[in-house]
């Protein structure tokens, strides 16, 4: 039983990272209808930037906002320079450009920082507290930061004029433009926000796993799964989906182990994590493409 609680707790912590990535994916999907395959590599790149800042002697809590800001600028730049001309291009072109971005960021990180693994120390203090047998301080920290991030975003979209303008631009670009919203810049802003959120995700996950150029592939896949489970058109849903998928991932491995211990039959374990994500992605896409909390879109023909 104790193990089970432990698994759920660490699942929630992993889920926090998936939730961040899912949130970033949703941010771009809602504003541009694109699925950003380069999101994971962007986050990885940002994590390296944080590492670099730490090397230069900055403290983590100073480095994180700086890197988030820098990633924001990268995101805006990518949208304005690379994706803007492809606005009306067929889906294939957009997907290919994303794959190109993925390749560029992946190899740049390797070229600049090398392929040896690096470690970022956890920014959260080592303290003992009630329940610290079940969950470590870094894991608690990841969950708290994710929830704070979500609340901040919610407040931004709900209570600020800029947030309102962004929502308008996403929902109905034509009317928003007529009402004086600069739709193009809103899309770029969405990209920037996504990159900044991804930077937070990367910086948080780096202390939990080691820093290396390949670190994000499986995490991105779970981010996708989280976004789809929660509904790729709903930010809150994506966060919930991220947590659900994180817990699910650990529970499946846990029960797989239990099954092997009791009956000796090996069915599923840690080695099948990506296959589980694949099954989740395909199941959700085919059975309920709008996810648990997403809006069902109706297309006029």
């Amino acid at each position, binding site marked *: 039983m104790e193990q089970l609680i432990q698994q759920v707790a660490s699942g929630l912590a992993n889920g926090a990272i998936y939730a961040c990535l899912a949130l970033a994916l949703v941010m771009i999907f809602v504003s541009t209808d694109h699925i950003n395959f380069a999101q994971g590599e962007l986050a990885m790149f940002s994590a390296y930037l944080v590492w670099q800042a730490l090397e230069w002697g900055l403290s983590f809590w100073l480095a994180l906002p700086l890197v988030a800001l820098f990633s924001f600028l990268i995101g805006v730049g990518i949208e304005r320079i690379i994706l803007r001309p492809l606005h009306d291009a067929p889906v294939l*072109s957009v997907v290919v450009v994303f794959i*190109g971005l993925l390749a560029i960021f992946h190899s740049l990180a390797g070229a600049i920082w090398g392929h040896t693994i690096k470690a970022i120390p956890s920014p959260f203090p080592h303290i003992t507290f009630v329940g610290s047998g079940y969950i470590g301080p870094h894991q608690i920290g990841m969950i708290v930061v994710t929830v704070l991030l979500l609340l901040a975003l919610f407040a931004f979209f709900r209570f600020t004029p800029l947030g309102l303008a962004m929502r308008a631009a996403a929902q109905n670009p034509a009317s928003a433009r007529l009402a004086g919203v600069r739709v193009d810049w809103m899309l770029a802003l969405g990209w920037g926000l996504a990159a900044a959120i991804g930077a937070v995700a990367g910086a948080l996950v780096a202390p939990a796993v080691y820093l290396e150029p390949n670190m994000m592939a499986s995490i991105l896949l779970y981010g*996708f799964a989280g976004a789809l489970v929660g509904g790729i058109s709903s930010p809150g849903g994506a966060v919930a989906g991220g947590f659900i998928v994180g817990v699910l991932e650990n529970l499946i491995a846990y029960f797989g182990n239990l099954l092997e211990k009791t009956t000796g039959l090996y069915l599923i374990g840690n080695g099948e994590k990506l296959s589980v994500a694949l099954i989740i992605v395909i199941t959700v896409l085919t059975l309920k493409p709008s996810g648990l909390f997403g809006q069902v879109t109706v297309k006029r023909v």
Partner: protein
Amino acid sequence: MATTTTANGIAAVRRMSLGQGRWVWALVVVLALLPIIGGKTGLISNYGFLQLSLMIVYAIAVLGLNILTGFNGQISLGHGAFFAVGAYTSAVLIDQANWPFWATLPLAAIMCFVVGYLFGLPALRLEGHYLALATFALAVAVPQILKYRHFEWFTHGVQGINIFKPDPPFGLPLSGDQWMYLVVLAVAVLMFWIARNLLDSRTGRAMMAIRDHSMAAGTMGINVAHYKTVVFGISALYTGVAGALHAIIFEFVAPDSFRFELSIAILVGAVVGGIASLPGAVIGGVFVQVIEKYADALTKKITTAVHLPIDLEPWTIYGIALIVLMYTMPMGIAGGLAVLWRRLKRS
């Protein structure tokens, strides 16, 4: 706008390929004579023939993706998975059941058709970005699926399978690499010939109608679901046969040769060559192998030439090439050449 250029590009490619049918066969004959011309005179080493074989293999794999994406409009980022299924089917049959290599090819083809068809069923409900996402997940998960513990008795897990390159039959005076080159070439010619006829037929027109406007195609009486799944199967079949040939000429398969990078390479080949063109598939196949072979040296040269402070990596060039190509030649090199050809003829 984009669609009209696309249509023009395709029409141009078609005209070019139909008008030059004789040249294609002449080229095939020259290629088939290479072991005699190049091999005997020592112009082309065995290693050279291996490289040529790999180019042809990738051309078949890229053709598979072309059929699906270029001619049927379904995006796949996961064709490495079908490549892996073909490679493993062939390798396991040779390793476990001692089948001769040529007998494994049809079985690999059937196997991949079935797998592709089954994957095509859920893919029916997905379009554009969602299909890309599902196939992306497939591509990322492939090595893990191959390492699955209950498959280990025939896949040998992480270690992979070693097989031996077959010797030429009937005491032909050829080296193993030259013989396999001829086999690969023959298979490729057959596959391209079938693909050309398929695309030129009623089925091919239905496929393209679905790509251009699936709903209109449906109202014209085309069974969209049936065609889409079957095309997924055919596409997987092509890429799978390429995988099987790759396993045989490379004499080795292992889960980590089928990582996400392979799917990317196939996609890059298709896009660079020209996504809806048969000559494009050949260009793409050559491109994939050349890049894989020489990208390291090339990037080192560029790094030193422009005095970059960091060592560039091949993937950076890959990525930049992809993005630049999407702007300048969305129909790939084949499409670009076709447009150029038309302009030259007109003036």
